[in-house]
C-alpha cells in the first residue's frame, strides 16, 4: 500500500468525526497561532526600535554620565573632545523636567539644554523658525525651540514663532519649531523644549551635563573616535570609568538584538510548552481512537493489512490532524497579528521563517505523538482485535 492511500484513509477517518478532530487540533491551533502572533508583535517592535536607532545616524556617539557626582563635565572641557581628530561636532546635554505655560495651556515637558550642533548631530530639522545659535548660548538668551507636540499643545491655534512662553515662571521667546520625529522606545520625541545650555542650567538650577552627543568624522572612524573619547574621559576623570559609558549606535543595536534574542528564546519556550500540550492532546485522542477502532484494525489485518500499513494509517492520521491544526494555527495567527496591527499602536512584522518553522513543528508533533498510538495499533493481535465489539 502506498503513502497516498494511507493519506486518503486518514483523511476519510478524520472527516468521519469532525468535531473530535477539531477538538484534537485545538491545542495545536492555539499553540501555533499564539507563537505566530507573539513573534509578529515581538519582531515588529524590535524592528521599529532598530529602525529608530538607525535613523539617528550611524556616526553618532553617546557619552552618558551615570554618576553626575564623580563626573562633572563643564563647558570648557568640551574643547578636548572637539579637538579630537575623529570627532567633528559635540553637543552637551543637560535635561530636566519642567512646567511650560502659555496662557491657560500648560504642559510637563523635558527641557533639553544644548548647543547649536545638536540639530545636525541628532539629524533633526525645523518646520518653522530657526535653531539656537552659539552667540545666544554665550549671552544666555531666553529663547526656546519647541518640539512639534509641545508647540501644538501650547499654541493650538496660533503660530508660536515670536511668542513668549513661561518655563518655571521665567519667560522665554519661541524662535523655532521642530519637525515631528515620532515616538521612540515609548517616549515621544516631539514632547520637548530645546533651549541654550547656559539658560537651561540657570532656569533648572542644575549645572550638570548628563549626556554628550558626539558625531564622528565619518562612519569608518566611529570606533577610533570612541577610543579617543574614552581616552579623554580617562585623562579628565581617572578611576571613574564606572560612572560613564561611551556607546555607538552599533553598541545600542547589539544591546537591542540581545534583548530580541532573549525574547525569541522566551517565545520559543512558550511555543514548546503549548505545542507539547497540543501534542499530548493528539496522542490522547489517538489512543482513544485506537482502542475504539480495535475491531476495525482486526478486520483490516484479517484481509491482509500488515503491521506497517496499520502503523502508517494511524501515524498519518495523527500527522494530518496536527498539520491541519498547524495550518489553521498559522492562518489564525497571521490574522490575529494583522488585527493587532490594525487596532493597536504596536507594529507587526511577519517572519516567514518562523511561520514555516511553526508548520514544520506541527508536523513533527504529529509524528512524535502519533508513533506511540500507531505502534500500539499495529501490534494488536488480529484475533483478539476481531473479538472486540
Amino acid at each position: 500500500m502506498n503513502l497516498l492511500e494511507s493519506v486518503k484513509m486518514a483523511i476519510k477517518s478524520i472527516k468521519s468525526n469532525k468535531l473530535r478532530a477539531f477538538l484534537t487540533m485545538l491545542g495545536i491551533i492555539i499553540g501555533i497561532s499564539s507563537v505566530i502572533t507573539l513573534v509578529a508583535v515581538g519582531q515588529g517592535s524590535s524592528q521599529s526600535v532598530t529602525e529608530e536607532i538607525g535613523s539617528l545616524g550611524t556616526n553618532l556617539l553617546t557619552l552618558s554620565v551615570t554618576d553626575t557626582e564623580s563626573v562633572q563635565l563643564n563647558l570648557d572641557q568640551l574643547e578636548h573632545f572637539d579637538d579630537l581628530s575623529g570627532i567633528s561636532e559635540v553637543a552637551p546635554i543637560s535635561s530636566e523636567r519642567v512646567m511650560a505655560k502659555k496662557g491657560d495651556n500648560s504642559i510637563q515637558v523635558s527641557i533639553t539644554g544644548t548647543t547649536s550642533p545638536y540639530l545636525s548631530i541628532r539629524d533633526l530639522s525645523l518646520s518653522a523658525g530657526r535653531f539656537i545659535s552659539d552667540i545666544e548660548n554665550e549671552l544666555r538668551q531666553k529663547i526656546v525651540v519647541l518640539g512639534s507636540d509641545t508647540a501644538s499643545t501650547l499654541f493650538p491655534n496660533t503660530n508660536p514663532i515670536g511668542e513668549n512662553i513661561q518655563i518655571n515662571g521665567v519667560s522665554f521667546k519661541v524662535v523655532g519649531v521642530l519637525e515631528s520625529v515620532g515616538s521612540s522606545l515609548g517616549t515621544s520625541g516631539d514632547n520637548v523644549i530645546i533651549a541654550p545650555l547656559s539658560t537651561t542650567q540657570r532656569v533648572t538650577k542644575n549645572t550638570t551635563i548628563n549626556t554628550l552627543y558626539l558625531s564622528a568624522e565619518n562612519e569608518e572612524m566611529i570606533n577610533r573616535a570612541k577610543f579617543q573619547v574614552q581616552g579623554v574621559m580617562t585623562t579628565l576623570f581617572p578611576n571613574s570609568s564606572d560612572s560613564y559609558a561611551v556607546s555607538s549606535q552599533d553598541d545600542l543595536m547589539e544591546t537591542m538584538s540581545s534583548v530580541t534574542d532573549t525574547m525569541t528564546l522566551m517565545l520559543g519556550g512558550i511555543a514548546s510548552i503549548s505545542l507539547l500540550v497540543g501534542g499530548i492532546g493528539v496522542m490522547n485522542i489517538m489512543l482513544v481512537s485506537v482502542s475504539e477502532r480495535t475491531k476495525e484494525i482486526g478486520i483490516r489485518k484479517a484481509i491482509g493489512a500488515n503491521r506497517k500499513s496499520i502503523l502508517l494509517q494511524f501515524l498519518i492520521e495523527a500527522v494530518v490532524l496536527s498539520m491541519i491544526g498547524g495550518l489553521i494555527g498559522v492562518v489564525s495567527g497571521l490574522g490575529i497579528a494583522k488585527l493587532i496591527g490594525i487596532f493597536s499602536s504596536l507594529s507587526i512584522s511577519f517572519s516567514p521563517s518562523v511561520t514555516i518553522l511553526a508548520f514544520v513543528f506541527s508536523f513533527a508533533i504529529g509524528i512524535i505523538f502519533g508513533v506511540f498510538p500507531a505502534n500500539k495499533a499495529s501490534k494488536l493481535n488480529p484475533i483478539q482485535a476481531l473479538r472486540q465489539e
Partner: protein
Amino acid sequence: MVQLAQVVQEEVDSNMTKPIIEINHLSKSYELGGETVHALQEVSLQINEGDFLSIIGPSGSGKSTFMNMLGCLDKPDTGEYLLDGKNVTTMKDHELAVIRNVKIGFIFQNFNLLNKYTALENVELPLVYRGISVKERRDTAIECLEMVGLGDRQYHLPTQLSGGQQQRVAIARALAGNPSVLLADEPTGALDSKTGKEVLKLLKELNEKGHIIILITHDLEVARKAKRVVRIQDGQLFENGGDWLEPAGIRQNGH
C-alpha cells in the same frame, strides 16, 4: 495402523493432486484461570484443489479456533501448517499479511464490514492493501459486487443494507482478491433460511469455479451440500465419510 493409513493416503494424494493445505498435528490450548482448555488437539488434515469442506461440531469444540489457524490469523502452539508447500507457522507478520491478502478470503459470521465504508469501498479494501491501482480495483470490486447480486448497492453503507446483503458484501470482499481458499465461519448463521440458501448456492458456484471452500456450520442440511464433511469434537478432528450425518448421529450432536 492409523499412521500407516495416513502415509498411504499421502502417497496417493501426491501422485494425484498435490494438497493445497496440509496440516499436521496441530495443537492449541488456552490457559484460563489455571485451567487449560485444549481448543485443538493434534489435528491433521489435507485439503486439495477443488475441495468443498464443511466443518461441523458442537459449540466450543474448537471450530473457529481451527478456522483462524487456517486463515493465518492465529498461530498454533505445536504442529505444522503447510500452505502451497510453504510452512506458515514459521512465517513473519508481514509474510502472513500477504497470505491473508492473496491466498485467503475470510467470510465471518458477523460480517465484519467497516461501517464507515461503502459496500464498494469495503470490497476494494483487500486490493488497496495489495497496492492495486484505483481504476483496476474499482472495476474488480464492482465485478465482485455484481457477482453476489449487489451491483446496485455499491454506495450503500453496511448499516443501510440487510443482513443478507451485508453477508454478500462480505463474500464479495473475500472474492475480490481472487483467493484460492475461501474460509466461511458460519456464514449463514445470522441469516434466515432463504437468504442462507442463496449464500450457500453462491459458495457452491464459487467452488465450481475452482475456489476451495471451507465452511463451518451448525446446519446439517448445509453441511451435507459439501463434498467433504469433517467434525470437530473437544478439539479433535474426525473425517468419516459423513456417518454422523445419519439421523442417529444428528441426535448425538444435540440437533
